[in-house]
């Protein structure tokens, strides 16, 4: 659905209902930020196209599961204008932000946004931290259908909170789950007390979807869109909108430290090897992975009714330098040894350079012992008396990230 379609549709239903609906919410001149719909399609890990209900940016015109992460600055006056062209009423509950009753998003104490309606939620973002937002209409069903997202309040000085630690960047990790049958048949989902999730997600993704390059948490600086401050920890913004209890297991190499919960600093930051997250809870965890780390941490989902284990998802963390090296290696000029295998002499050249250009190389024998370091003339080496085996030639000061070739191996027979 495009934004134009949305506007036309919203206008039509508004006209239809304006005579019979009392809109008990404030009107505003601001353009809508979010819209809700009940006809989304979310692709599961196995390719299944699952119906969902959700929110999306009106400027984008498409919903996502979870809804877009909203980020505000500390002490910002926030006005979230929300329009609902969908066939049922919806709201936005600002979970954990302690907004006043009028903006709380609970139909019975605040207001509904009915079909065709637009309303606004106003508050001051007066605490840094990790928060959530979700629909509070028939909440058991609407959450299971996907109407939730994360909301962050951050500081311009990149401290977690006043007097708190500095960090490089925010990584939202929103755990959630759903019962597939309910999403396919929400009208048949009653009774709600026996809803049992059977699909478990991190940021709406599961299984192999979490292995996609764009889902990897990079650290260490230099990665486009990634950490901007080399050496600073990464802030995992962890929250849950699921029915399950989620236990995160952090490898010691991540050096995970919990600093905040539910938008408030904990009295004393503490090291983590595991973290239990219940529905609606949030934690801000800083990780300072060891250089070169490339691994995962586990998010294990547990059934809250019978405490049975359900499933685990794995979130990958990777030193950005590794990706940069791979990227550079893919584009670095190739060092070539010829002939290869060699019997009498071996020559070296770099693609794009004249074969007569001298090279600065280190040569290592099959046991790894360095047998040469320095300039190699275009005439190459006499290898006729070298023991047979696989040798390594590595350019001196090799740095693929700066466009110099990587090491190669050649065989002497």
């Amino acid at each position, binding site marked *: 659905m495009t934004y134009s379609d949305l506007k036309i549709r919203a206008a039509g239903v508004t006209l239809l209902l304006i005579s019979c609906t009392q809109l008990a919410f404030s009107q505003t001149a601001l353009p809508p930020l979010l819209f809700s719909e*009940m*006809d989304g399609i979310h692709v599961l890990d196995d390719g299944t196209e699952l*119906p969902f209900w959700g929110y999306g940016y009106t400027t984008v015109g498409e919903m996502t599961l979870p809804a877009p992460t909203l980020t505000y600055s500390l002490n910002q006056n926030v006005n979230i204008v929300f329009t609902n062209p969908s*066939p*049922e009423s919806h709201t936005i*509950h600002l*979970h*954990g932000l*302690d*907004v*006043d*009753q*009028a903006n*709380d998003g*609970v139909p019975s*104490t605040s207001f509904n946004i009915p079909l065709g309606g637009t309303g606004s939620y106003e508050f001051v973002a007066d605490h840094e931290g990790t928060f959530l937002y979700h629909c509070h209409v*028939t*909440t*058991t*069903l609407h*959450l*299971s259908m996907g109407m939730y997202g994360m909301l962050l309040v951050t500081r311009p000085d990149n401290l977690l909170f006043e007097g708190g630690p500095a960090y490089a960047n925010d990584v939202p990790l929103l755990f959630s789950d759903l019962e597939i049958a309910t999403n396919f048949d*929400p*009208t048949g989902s*009653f*009774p*709600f*007390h*026996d*809803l049992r999730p059977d699909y478990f997600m991190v940021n709406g993704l599961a299984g192999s979807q979490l292995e996609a390059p764009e889902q990897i948490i990079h650290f260490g600086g230099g990665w486009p869109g990634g950490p901007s401050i080399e050496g600073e920890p990464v802030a995992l913004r962890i929250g849950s909108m699921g*029915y399950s*209890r989620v236990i995160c297991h952090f490898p010691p190499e991540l050096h995970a430290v919990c600093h905040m*919960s*539910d*938008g*408030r600093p*904990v*009295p004393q930051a*503490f090291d983590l090897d595991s973290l*239990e997250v*219940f*529905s*609606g*809870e*949030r934690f801000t965890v800083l990780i300072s992975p060891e250089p070169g780390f490339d691994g995962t941490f586990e998010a294990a989902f547990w059934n*809250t*009714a*019978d*405490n049975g284990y359900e499933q685990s998802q794995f979130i990958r963390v990777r030193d950005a330098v590794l990706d940069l090296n791979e990227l550079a290696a893919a584009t670095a000029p190739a060092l070539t040894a010829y002939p290869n295998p060699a019997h009498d002499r071996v020559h070296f050249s770099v693609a794009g350079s004249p074969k007569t250009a001298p090279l600065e190389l280190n040569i290592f024998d099959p046991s790894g012992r360095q047998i040469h370091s320095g300039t190699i003339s275009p005439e190459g080496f006499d290898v006729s008396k070298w023991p047979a085996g696989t040798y390594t030639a590595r350019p001196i000061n090799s740095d693929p990230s700066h466009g110099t070739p990587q090491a190669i191996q050649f065989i002497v027979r």
Partner: protein
Amino acid sequence: MVFRLIFVVMPIKLLTTLVVAAAASTAIVGSVGSASAQGVAADTLWINPGSWVQALDTMATMRFNGSADFDSTGAVLARPDGEAWSVVVINGDSVDHVFKLSGTAGDPASSWAGVELSAGDTTAVLAPALDQGSYRFFLQGDRARVLGAAGLLRIGYPAPDPGNPDATPDYDALFNWNLCEWSPERIVQVAGSQPQNWDAAYIPKYFTINERGFPQTVADPMGAVNLTMGQTGIISVANHGYMDQVLHFHGFHVTLLHDTATPQRAGWIKDTVPVRAGHTVTLKLLANQPGTYPVHAHNLIAVTLAGFYPGGMLTQINVTQ
């Protein structure tokens, strides 16, 4: 196609939900316990078997009450901190029981051996001194647990005395929430009329605060938090069921004063508080903004009553100017 189906059917379904939920609520009224049953300084506890109606289910049950008359709302005990205390327990059940306490692993409550209560007998229980906080007293064993024979023990929080504010300088009101989920199938099994099957899927049907499901919870003076601006309330919460619960506060953050499952969290300020099965938390709430705000379980199957939303573990905070 999905869109059209939802458009047509959902309003009908929701209307049905509201009608049936209202009917279910009406059905519960007759079985709601009295506010007086929440008297907290009882010297004597009666173990009363009885029957309890929730929506369309009439279930066998068992409660600690402050008199020989069965009341579906269990009694709450309050005692000073730092000194041994006693209570007389009259076992009105047909089988022997063991009276136990639970707190943090290894604390005097959890390490206390308990006291045997013979069927039909009266027993004087002398219990150990405990630190300030909230605890559980209960009868050992799954039968008693499924039937609801458990209560909340509040230690070191005397009732506020408006005439002597110096005696209670830190708070203005006390509240207590006994959380529990109920499975009619399991109740039938432990009551003896059907074989027990603990391997069967556990699907509780009712979720209560002080043995009430919403909307009855808001009429409970101990369950609904009514304060005026600037006042502070202390909320003692016990989870007597098998399921972990997690409570979300709208409009407020609360301070964890005591948490028997994760004692290291004392002092944390949160809006979403896990209350693990068999454990207790003690919370401090400052009424710093006016209005009416829900408090509810955020495992959202627990805000239902017989499957209907809203119901179950849902109450509210009312702050007046």
